[in-house]
């Protein structure tokens, strides 16, 4: 009996590991294939020889991509929006979360403020009113169109607010006795203490700005597209208008699929670089937020 049970357990373990390995591979294979395509030469790609390993290895698609001015220009726009946008996100989150973490008798109208924020999670004006507003504020084709409309991230405010509520108020009282105002209490006690939470929020805002493309498409002109929008325009819409003659000549020697693959990889690399940190703070982030019973 016991032996049978053990054998059954053993088989379950083996099948389980096999199934999980296979699933993980299936998730991964598209990426491996794309990396292989980006490192293979034209003949191999056209001949359908490239599967999960580069054939006739070459860096040429990458050097082509990295020498394109349009690519670097859009990279610059994205860098700008990540720097300005994520900083703004985090500063606003801190300044909103701190007062709102106080109980109602310490912050008058707290209830009203919280509802003003919360309501935006329930209802929004929709695409057209937002677009017209940005247009009438004369922000079209400026970096502010990418940064200001989404500057207040209500969900992150709630995350940090809940974190601050757990802070023992003796700490704050002590600071207050020492004559520290709210700004100093926030800056010297709350912010240093909540660095892990702030780092989590910062990372998610960075990834959010890096990945955003739709606002770039509707608010910006072609030569000011952020990277993801630029990628969308050439990988998905096949719009090669941004290319000049010498680039076109060079592209003829390459395979279109390899070039697209190389651009996607380059755009994914920064995510890959912050991925370990994302992972580290990720579980902490969930614990702060959704699972909090």
């Amino acid at each position, binding site marked *: 009996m016991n032996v049978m049970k053990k054998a059954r357990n053993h088989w379950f373990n083996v099948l389980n590991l096999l199934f*999980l390995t296979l699933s993980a591979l299936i998730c991964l294979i598209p990426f491996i294939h794309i990396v292989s395509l980006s490192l293979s030469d034209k003949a191999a790609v056209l001949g359908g020889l490239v599967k999960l390993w580069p054939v006739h290895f070459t860096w040429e698609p990458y050097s082509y991509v990295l020498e394109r001015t349009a690519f670097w220009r859009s990279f610059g726009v994205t860098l700008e929006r990540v720097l300005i946008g994520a900083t703004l996100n985090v500063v606003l989150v801190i300044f909103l979360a701190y007062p709102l973490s106080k109980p109602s008798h310490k912050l008058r109208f707290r209830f009203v403020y919280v509802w003003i924020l919360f309501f935006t999670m329930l209802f929004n004006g929709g695409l057209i009113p937002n677009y017209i507003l940005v247009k009438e504020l004369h922000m079209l084709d400026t970096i502010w169109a990418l940064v200001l409309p989404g500057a*207040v991230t209500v969900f992150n405010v709630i995350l940090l607010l809940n974190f601050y509520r757990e802070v023992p108020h003796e700490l704050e009282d002590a600071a207050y006795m020492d004559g520290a105002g709210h700004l100093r209490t926030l800056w010297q006690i709350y912010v240093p203490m909540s660095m892990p939470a702030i780092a989590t929020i910062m990372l998610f805002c960075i990834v959010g700005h890096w990945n955003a493309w739709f606002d770039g498409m509707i608010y910006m002109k072609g030569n000011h597209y952020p990277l993801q929008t630029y990628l969308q325009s050439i990988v998905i819409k096949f719009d090669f208008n941004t290319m000049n003659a010498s680039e076109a000549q060079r592209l003829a020697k390459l395979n279109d699929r390899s070039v697209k693959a190389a651009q996607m990889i380059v755009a994914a690399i920064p995510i890959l670089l912050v991925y370990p940190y994302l992972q580290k703070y990720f579980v902490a982030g969930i614990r702060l937020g959704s699972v909090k019973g």
Partner: protein
Amino acid sequence: MHLMLVPGLILILLFAYLPMTGVMIAFQQFNPVKGLFGDQKWVGLDNFHYIFSMPNIWRVVGNTLLIATLKIVFGMFTAILFALLLNEVKNIMFKRVTQTVIYFPYFLSWIILSGIMIDVLSPSSGLINQFLGVFGIKEIYFLGENKWFPFTMIASDIWKNFGFNTVVYLAAIAGIDPALYEAAAVDGASRWKQTWHVTLPGMRMIIVLLMVLSLGNIFDAGFDQIFNLYSPQVYQSGDIIDTMVYRMGLLQSQYSASTAVGLLKSGVSFVMITTSYYLAYRLFRYRLF
């Protein structure tokens, strides 16, 4: 302290509440030259009559509901299954590597994932159809045929998101009191029985909670994904409310009609989201703040 709130509140009022008042253009014959608060011509419910007279409106609503619901249902099922299976793995290293691999796509944009899918799913040169060809299966137009398109959307949505949700469920499992397992083992419960009688009930709260909260997403079939993968030949099965709003509004400049569709969607979503939060609060005392 009130001063600290000022910058954030101004931005919220400007970029969230002002557009909300902008939904009034759904009741106007909006002329963009006159501006958002210009002297527009009011037309009552004409735009709404126009929407409901469009031949494809119910098909679009149906597509939205179908794709969104199936994504929620299968996405949850897959994530719970993987959380349970990963939980049975004793090798920490294997567990961590698998998690790392399966939730990587979550952090990439739909632009990159769509680009990859367009290549991999290509009928002529794509990896998947080459693979199926080995078994003598004729090439499948995953993105170009109406009977495959919704399936492709649901499967690829799971590919992107299930790893993330698996980790959420694993966090819930980690919170289960180990004493419960010991007690079950003492009573002679097998691994399977322990999963059934301890792990699943331990996850029940988070499962029902996430299910309730996902009610609010029932009209979000995934604009970022579908917009980048669809084409006119799959509008029949793949066009959703959000893509229709985009085309009507920004490509055809039917500002008022597009806003009207958007307003209807936000209105119904508002009711759904409010209900879901209300239920979550009543059932679990779940509160966001």
